[in-house]
């Protein structure tokens, strides 16, 4: 399985505040990794480092340049980064995913617009191509942002809490869609909802200042304890139940 990128003893910090320390992490083609961990544990920071938005303080991040570089990654940020009231249409937002690799002078060709049309159909957004985000539901907005992340057909997409603000039926559709996409691209997905994502992902990474990689989708409280990963663990049995654990 070809490697997409590797991190070696990488640390990242905001000023004097070290958020990630000594992280070793490898992502391969067609991986579907769930990134879990407590709030403030460094999940989003990990994505920022991969995207090149934050320079590592120490260590290295090496891309397999034939497949991927820091500017060709699809990214679905947390909902809050864009302004939903901004006067920009769904089609134009999805097209912005093609700015990867285009020059600042570039215009969108008719084949670009056809691609946007295909993505809109594929994600069930037909009829909304001319809407602004403030006319859509939370689930539909997430699909538009997913569309922006995948229109360029990148080898890797990073998803930051895509389950937020989405109702359950929408969520299941969304994860089914991701399973499809995983056939052609690796996925790294930050989530706090371990129970829901565990049936979709292939492996876990727990981020809490350090990073522990867990090569199977099943994760137990013992694992979390060992990793020092104080998160909410939800499991599904005959009767759905929630186990809350706080680790020191």
């Amino acid at each position, binding site marked *: 399985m070809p490697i997409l990128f590797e991190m070696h003893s990488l640390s990242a910090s905001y000023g004097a505040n070290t958020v990630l320390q000594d992280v070793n992490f490898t992502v391969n083609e067609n991986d579907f990794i769930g990134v879990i961990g407590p709030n403030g544990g460094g999940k989003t920071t990990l994505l920022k480092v991969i*995207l*090149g*938005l934050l320079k590592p303080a120490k260590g290295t991040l090496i891309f397999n340049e034939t497949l991927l570089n820091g*500017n060709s*990654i699809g*990214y679905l*940020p947390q909902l809050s*980064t*864009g*302004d939903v009231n*901004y*006067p*920009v*249409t769904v089609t*134009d*937002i999805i*097209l*912005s995913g093609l*700015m*990867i*690799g285009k020059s*600042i*002078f*570039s*215009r*969108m060709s008719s084949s670009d617009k056809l691609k946007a049309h295909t993505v809109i159909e594929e994600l069930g957004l037909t009829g909304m191509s*001319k809407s*602004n985000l403030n006319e859509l539901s939370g689930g539909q907005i997430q699909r538009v942002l997913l569309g*922006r992340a995948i229109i360029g057909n990148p080898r890797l997409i990073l998803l930051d809490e895509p389950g937020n603000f989405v109702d359950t039926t929408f969520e299941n559709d969304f994860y089914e869609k991701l399973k499809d996409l995983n056939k052609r691209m690796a996925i790294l997905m930050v989530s706090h909802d371990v129970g829901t994502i565990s049936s979709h992902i292939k492996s876990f990474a727990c981020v809490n200042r350090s990073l522990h990689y867990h090569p199977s989708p099943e994760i137990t409280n013992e694992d979390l304890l060992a990793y020092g990963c104080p998160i909410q663990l939800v499991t599904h049995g005959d009767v759905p139940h929630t186990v809350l654990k706080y680790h020191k």
Partner: protein
Amino acid sequence: MEPNIFQYGFIIKGLLGAIFASITAGLAGTYVVSRRMVFLSGGITHASFGGIGIGYFIGINPVVGAAVFGIMSALGVEYLSVKQKIREDSAIGILWAFGMAIGIIFIYLTPGYTPNLMSYLFGSILTVSRADIIALGVMSVILILYFGIFYRTILYISFDEVYARTYSSYVDIFKYVTTSLVALTIVLNIRMAGVVLVISLLTIPPNIAMLFTRVYSKIVIWSIIAGFVGTATGYVISYYAGIPVGATIIFTLVIIWVLVRITTLLIMKLSKRRN
């Protein structure tokens, strides 16, 4: 009174001024309104009054002084908001009043001739020179080229800056250049509408357009049209009624906003009833 050559020149000046003011304010205003920079633009406007005062005091063209002050304060606030060391709205508030204070101090320190303060505060077509019109014309061409060539880049950076940073390393340059052009647009329009009113020249037309379209490029075009109708009508009314032109233009624009708002509401109600 027979029309004479001065009156003719006055009409040409007014017409060209209205066209160029609408184009520059429409392009810059749509950016300002979409990016929610209205308060920042107000701060830039009032800070540039400091440049006007210093311009008079040291004997250079006050518009040049205003341009320097306007651009510097625009870049300063953008820079501060990136660094997030100071609350942006407080920084703008300080800049706003400080610029006005500097302006007043230096205008009163200027020996001899005291310029007509009212014309800078509220605008006056009588003080608009040929050079002002030419400057606005050049600015129109620059803005049309800039927004035309970099339309998508600017649109996407101002919609979602964080995402734009994932593929482009030009985000900050574009933010600084666009904000500087906005500052220059404001300064050049001060002669027309005045320090106090120029911000409405930028913000009312896009808000008229946004009553019936939500596509960025269409908002720009309709802003320019609405701006021209408001500006030209304002001129005519101000000429015949003998009232200050800046105030008349803003008043006319607000009336247009109200009329369009009522019309769109009526159309919505009618189409609902039909369904």
